[in-house]
Each structure stands twice: as C-alpha cells, then as structure tokens.
C-alpha cells in the first residue's frame, strides 16, 4: 500500500519502469496524460489549456479564462484524489512535489546520459541529430523553469528524490525489483499517513474550487485541512474577496470549522 511517483527526463524509460512496477506490485498506473484528462473532465477545462499551464511559465498576457496557477490548482486536486485510493504508480511531471512529506510516498527520478537520450529520441522522432539535441535541451529548460517558478526549487537537485536511477546503467528489471523491495519494506501506508492524504485531497479540492470561482480574484490563498478544520492563509485583493472565499469554503460538505488568517493586499 503505497504511492510511487516517477519523474522522467525526456525518453529515459520512466514509462517502462512504471509499467513493470505496476505489474509486479499490482498497482494502478497513472500517467501525466491521464491525469490531465481527468482534471479536464472534473473541472471542465480544456486539455490544451491545462497542458499549457503545465509546461510554460506564465507570461504577461493570460489568454485563457483562468490563470496558469488556477489550472495548476485543478491538476493538484485531481492528483491528490487519484492517489487517495492508494497503490498507484504515477509517471510524469511534478507529481512528487505535491505529495512530498507523505510517509507512504516513494519518489523516484529516472535519468540517462545525454547520449542515450539523443539516440532514444531520434529513434522515435526521426529528427536529425542536431535538431534532436536542440529539442531535448529546450524541453529540459522549459521544465526547469516551470518547476522553479511553481515550487521555487531546482528539479535537478537529487536531494528532492528518494532514489535517482540511471536507467542506462541499471537494467529496468533490476531497478524494478529494487524499488518494489524498497516500497514493501519502508513505504507502507499507515492510518496517519492515510489521514494526511485525505486532508490533502480535501484541501486541494477546496483550493481548486476557489481557483475556478470567477467571482474571486485570488492569487495567493493557501488552504490547509486537518480533519475537517480548514485554515485559510495568504492574501486576497479585497475584504469582499475574503468573504466570498469564506462563503465558498463554508458551503463545501465536510467542513467542520474555518480558521481564517487571510490578509488583504492593498
């Protein structure tokens, strides 16, 4: 009973590792693409908009209905809900940051040397070598910037992961065995860690509702949940907005009490 997230560089074998772990442990597999799809359905957003929010930093002009951050709140809410049932292997971008600190979350990054990635990409895309290198570098850079912007961290810092596996040198089967064993030894859900996930699902669900509420101009509201007690922090643009946030939260089923610590930004 655990949640595994695998962050992947472009073409470095994360999908294959996820599939192997899914089979070995009997876990459900969730890809980034499926997560985006489910998010779009739940919050009535287009996949294209979500995709953009997940790949690019915000520009000055936001062409869409919601700001990039609003979309990201929706994706986070769906991610939390998707892993609530436990026994999931997620592979794709950024999943690990949301779940960091959960005792039954094992966080992997798979890597490969540049040369290996170039070859793998060329095989799939049939691009010329130079164009492929450009393509990989662009993707890497975009992702670096995105993670830096959303979470304020350097995604290449190995200390953010529990394991970083070089799949060029460690065969897939070995990596899969090793991780399956580590999960079974150290990453089993406890009632306490499960409660944390439940709280996270509740908090991110509320946060997403605030994000998609067109009457609230918010950027920086933080929502925490602890067994039905909701803490609201951060800033809003007006006292009216603060009221609207509180009213919205009050209306959500399961809310026992609200601790409101929002400030108004003038």
């Amino acid at each position, binding site marked *: 009973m655990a949640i595994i997230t695998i962050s992947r560089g472009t073409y470095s074998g994360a999908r294959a590792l996820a599939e192997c772990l899914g089979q070995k442990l009997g876990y459900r597999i969730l890809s980034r693409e499926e997560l985006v799809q489910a998010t779009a359905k739940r919050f009535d957003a287009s996949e294209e908009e979500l995709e953009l929010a997940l790949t690019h930093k915000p520009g000055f002009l936001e062409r869409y209905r919601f700001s990039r951050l609003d979309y990201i709140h929706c994706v986070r809410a769906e991610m939390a809900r998707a892993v609530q049932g436990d026994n999931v292997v997620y592979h794709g971008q950024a999943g690990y940051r949301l779940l960091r600190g959960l005792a039954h979350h094992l966080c992997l990054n798979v890597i490969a040397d540049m040369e290996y990635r170039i070859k793998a990409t060329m095989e799939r895309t049939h691009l010329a070598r130079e164009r492929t290198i450009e393509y990989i570098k662009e993707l890497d850079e975009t992702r670096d910037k995105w993670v830096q912007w959303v979470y304020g961290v350097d995604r290449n810092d190995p200390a953010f992961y529990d*394991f970083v596996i070089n799949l060029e040198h460690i065969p897939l089967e070995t990596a899969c065995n090793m991780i399956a064993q580590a999960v079974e030894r150290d990453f089993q859900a406890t009632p306490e860690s499960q409660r944390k996930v439940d709280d996270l699902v509740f908090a991110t669900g509320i946060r997403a509702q605030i994000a998609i509420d067109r009457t609230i101009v918010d950027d920086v509201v933080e929502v925490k949940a602890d067994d039905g007690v909701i803490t609201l922090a951060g800033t809003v643009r007006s006292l009216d907005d603060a009221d609207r946030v509180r009213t919205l939260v009050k209306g959500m089923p399961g809310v026992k009490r609200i601790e409101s610590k929002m400030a108004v930004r003038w």
Partner: protein
Amino acid sequence: MAIITISRGTFSGGRDLAQCLGEKLGYRLLSREELLQAAGERFGASEGELESALTHRPGFLERHGFTRVHYIHCVQAEMARAVQGDDVVYHGQAGYLLLRGVGHHLRVKVVADMEYRIKAAVERTNLTRDRTIEYIKELDEARDKWVEHVYGVDRNDPTCYDLVINLEQISLPTACAAVAEVVQRDFQTTPESQRVVDDLAFASAIRAKIAIDRSIADEVLEIEAEDGVVTITGTVRSLNDADRVRALVNTMPGVRRIESRMGTRW
C-alpha cells in the same frame, strides 16, 4: 565480485551505508582517509599534501615543484591498485571519477536535505547552527570547484552516478539491500572488465611514476595501457623530457611495447 564507490556529501550517511554493504557482501571497506594514507606511503608524499591536493584547486604557488595534479595521479594509481583485487566498497570523494569506464563499478551517491545534514553536523562538531551551515556550504563549494577543475564535470549532475539515494527518506537497511541487489544482479566482474581495471592500475602507476620524477617537467601527459602496450600522449616541455619519459616507462616491469605520441610544447 564488484567495486562500489559511494560519494557522500558531508554528513549524509555514506559511511554507514558502506559499512552495511561491506558486512552484507563481505567486501573490503576503503575510506578516503585510508586511500590517502596508502598513496602517501607508496609515493613518499605526506598525507597533508595529498589532502590539500584533493581539496583545493591548484593555485599559482606550488611547493616543491609538485603540482596538485601530480598528487592526484598518485591517488589515482593507489585507487586503481586498491580495487584491482575486487570486492571493495570505497566511500569518499571522487571514487566515481577515478574508476571511469570500469564495467563492474557501481557508482552510488548518497544525498540528504540540507536540514538533515545540518543536524548531523551539529551533533558531531558541536558548532553553532549558523557556523555549521557556513561550514557545509564552504565544503560543498570547494568540492564543486575541485571536481569541475580537475575533471571538468559537475559533481551535482546525477548522471555522474548509477544510483542516487536519499538517506533521509530511505532507511539504511533498505538502501543497503537495494545496492546489494543491484550489485549482485548487474555489476559482476567479467574477465573483460577485470582487464580494464588491470590496465588502469598499470597505466596509472606509470603515470604516477612520471609525476613524482623530479627530472621530468610534465603536466599534460596521458598514459594508456592495453595488455602491456603503453601509449603515451600529451605534451612535454622538451625533447629531453620526452626521452626521459620513454626511458622511465621502458624500465617498468610488464611493459611490452611503447607507442609514443608525445608532442613538445614550445
């Protein structure tokens, strides 16, 4: 039958992992400190000199006409000899760099979040928290620069390693079991990979001899060995130096033939 090198950040648990692996696999342990001691004895250098060659970047002033690079050649030679007998767990700096290209060499790095390292360091050193942070940062920076300068690589790039483990998140027994599993499945010595180590031990011993020979003003010679055939490339300061190098290599037992491709730098 394998060689494991564990690169450790300051206070991130690498020593404990090495000890666990040594016991589990019946491998010999070799610490950075022991390596320097052995290199010092073998080549008549003081540990202090070796220590400083391994921690600082070369400056303009080099004592005794020995450059830092010369000391590094001595350490390299001793490292290659130490692992020639196989079944070794080395823990400490630069192990992954000293054995490049060896097929039965598993490169592990252990990491931990800054907070974890600070706590561990405060426990051991009794320094204040602020001073400890400074100390860790200074050490990190010095090592970053050293590796960049000597080997031209970024030691924080995870692709330098086969496996990176966060010992704050992964318990020691689990990490130990994981590494043992990988070693036993995929990093077993083959006759071919053993030959690479033998050649490396031979070539690096010759290189160190040249380095400590005070009559040769060398800096940029490269020695490769393949089954007794020694190839010398790079540049020397004079034709006389080139002669001295060839003469020295000729006297080494086991040299069957010399391919000399040295250039002279005017």
